């Protein structure tokens, strides 16, 4: 039987010049519904994992059993039944998928069109049962060659467990311990998918690494695990997610992302999250419980998180930086849009441990419809963190009078040389601004999109070009119908 051990690395070119990558071609069988040690053993066996990883998973699972689902976030949802979930499931067979775009929800297609996504891509995104055409193996080979030449490792996390056990053992769980929190523990026990990146010393990764090309795996991204290690004086920019909305049968997503930046290394991690937010009445939608954390271990290392969150019914997500290395830098740029019945509780933690560390937090929350949007953040300065700096700006924009915007920052300082500044404002799109735009000929939706993009500018300009243009359109699309 073909299993993950024989996961072949295939490369496809879906569209455009940069969206290359691998797909995992595997025949999978379903594990029975529910979670127990046997299911975890099954997953581990399927992945032919080393013993230590199975033990690690089991330990995480046993700890998870003792934990309670957190309730401190301002989120109101029906808690998932963890015994009613498949933790190891084959992707949908071709028979279950739509045969052509004619069978796909026209609403979804309309959005693709607005985003300017090609027909071929649309088919893949919508899960149409097509044989993906591999245009050019040679281009792909060049791509892999380029990375290989530089010594960059970019592979699935299962592969890494097999091929790079030393790196995996050293770093897996070193930033987000298996028992860190309820969802991280669950992920540690059952993760089945994810990405591993290692940038060797002194290497500047020659291209933006992206998971975008892996869209054909959309159905298995439920418990993703990402581990990125930037060795001394290296640089990498990683793009996660997709501007196109993806339909997904899995309601619960609990991903873990760990970043490690060593001496003078820099990691730029950009996310566009556009999972299904549920319909206008709040039915359906993804529960997105993500633990993302970076350790700036090296002197003068830097991690920059940029996120544009427009999707999911429930978002629970706090990409954080542990600034251990002296002179290390953490950044968090976030746009979170909630419309209709969406709820987002998101923000960051900046933990200053090393001397001369600095952090910047720019958060823009937009709330429309009946949505609730929370910024929750912690800036903590430890006693030995001399001369730390933090600047935080949290702005909330309200559209309509049935939504809520909330700001819950925590500032904890134990060193007198710190300089911490936090500012927050809440406002709405003024009637004057709207009329001004209308009078210049823009329609209501264009006007809202323009004003919101302006409001988010500081964050949007952090996005790599590949994302920026589509992300701008996305802001407008996410807010459709919120005014007028």
């Amino acid at each position: 039987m073909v299993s993950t051990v024989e996961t072949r690395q295939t490369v496809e070119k879906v569209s455009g010049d940069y969206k290359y990558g691998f797909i995992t071609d595997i025949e999978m069988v379903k594990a029975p519904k529910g979670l127990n040690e046997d299911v975890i053993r099954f997953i581990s066996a399927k992945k032919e994992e080393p013993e230590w990883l199975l033990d690690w998973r089991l330990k995480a699972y046993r700890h998870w059993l003792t934990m309670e689902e957190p309730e401190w976030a301002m989120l109101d949802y029906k808690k998932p039944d963890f015994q009613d979930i498949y933790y190891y499931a084959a992707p949908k067979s071709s028979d279950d998928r739509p045969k052509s775009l004619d069978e796909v929800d026209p609403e979804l297609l309309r959005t693709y069109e607005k985003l300017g996504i090609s027909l071929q891509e649309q088919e893949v995104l919508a899960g149409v049962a097509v044989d993906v055409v591999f245009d050019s193996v040679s281009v792909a080979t060049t791509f892999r060659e380029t990375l290989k030449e530089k010594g960059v490792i970019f592979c699935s996390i299962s592969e890494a467990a097999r091929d790079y056990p030393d790196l995996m053992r050293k770093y897996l769980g070193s930033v987000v311990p298996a028992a860190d929190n309820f969802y991280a523990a669950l992920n540690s026990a059952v993760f089945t998918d994810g990405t591993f990146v290692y940038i060797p010393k002194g290497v500047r990764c020659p291209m933006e690494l992206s998971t975008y090309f892996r869209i054909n795996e959309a159905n298995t991204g439920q418990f993703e695990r990402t581990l990125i290690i930037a060795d001394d004086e290296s640089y990498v920019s990683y793009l996660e997610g997709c501007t196109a909305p993806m339909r997904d049968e899995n309601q619960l997503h609990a991903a873990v992302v760990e970043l490690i930046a060593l001496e003078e290394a820099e990691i730029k991690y950009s996310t566009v999250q556009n999972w299904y937010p549920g319909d206008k009445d709040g039915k359906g939608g993804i529960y997105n419980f993500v633990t993302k954390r970076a350790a700036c271990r090296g002197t003068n290392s830097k991690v920059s998180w940029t996120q544009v969150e427009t999707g999911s019914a429930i978002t629970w997500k706090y990409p954080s930086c542990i600034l251990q290395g002296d002179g290390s830098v953490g950044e968090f740029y976030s746009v979170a849009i909630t419309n209709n019945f969406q709820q987002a509780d998101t923000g960051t933690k900046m933990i200053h441990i090393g001397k001369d560390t600095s952090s910047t937090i720019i958060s823009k929350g937009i709330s429309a419809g009946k949505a609730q949007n929370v910024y929750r953040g912690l800036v903590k300065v430890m006693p030995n963190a001399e001369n730390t700096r933090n600047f935080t700006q949290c702005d909330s924009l309200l559209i309509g009078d049935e939504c809520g915007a909330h700001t819950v920052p925590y500032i904890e300082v134990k060193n007198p040389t710190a300089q911490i500044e936090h500012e927050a404002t809440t406002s709405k799109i003024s009637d004057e601004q709207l009329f001004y735009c209308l009078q210049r000929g823009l329609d209501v939706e264009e006007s809202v999109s323009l004003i919101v993009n302006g409001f988010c500018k500081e964050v949007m300009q952090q996005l790599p070009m590949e994302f920026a243009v589509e992300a701008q359109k996305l802001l407008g699309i996410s807010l459709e119908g919120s005014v007028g």
Partner: protein
Amino acid sequence: MLEIKNLHVEVGGKEILKGLNLTINAGEVHAIMGPNGAGKSTLSYAICGKEGYEITEGSITFKGKNFLELEANERAAEGVFLGFQYPVEIPGVSNMNFLKAAINSIRKYRGEEEMAAVDFLKLIRAKAAELEMDPEMLKRAVNVGFSGGEKKRNEMVQMAMLDPVFAVLDETDSGLDIDALRIVADGINRMRSPEKAILVITHYQRLLDYVIPDFVHVLSDGRIVKSGDKSLAHVLEKDGYAGLGIDESAA
């Protein structure tokens, strides 16, 4: 071009315009003067379709179309431009982007192709130069951190770019020094042509020394109480509104 008949407008349940009649033909420049609170701004908002300005009676027809059926942006796309008394700030949106979005929206409404990026750049640079605006200002966010004069100049650049057939200029002259006033007047005069019309709303006749109107109307308590040629503005300047029997403090 523009025909307003028996216009009654309410704002927040209070009647501001009480049966206003006004006809403006192509090629004409009209000035509306009047004391504070006479309803001057209300008239401009009613023409341009601002929300909250409820038309309870009467009609506004523009080039034969019933304007009351059109949204604010559709009226703009029909070629009506409003120069704001207080131009609005839009943080994070550059003048350039704003105008590009506006021009293309109007073109879309008219069923035209989008303007090519190169043509747009050429045009905006030319217009900025004509109106003596620093090209750097085009990259800055719309009106954010602009001085009063810069804002008004920006309105003129926008007007030049959008090339309307009819412009309503609401107190465009207020708060301007003499140089800025000259530039604004210059912007308005550039627009004068047999195909176009302009409505200047002002409290003082100062601007009318630079933009010579064909007709002057005096608005008081929601109605036009007197119309005449440019000499009427001078009468007002000399005798004040009181000379026309208008109690300015009561308005």
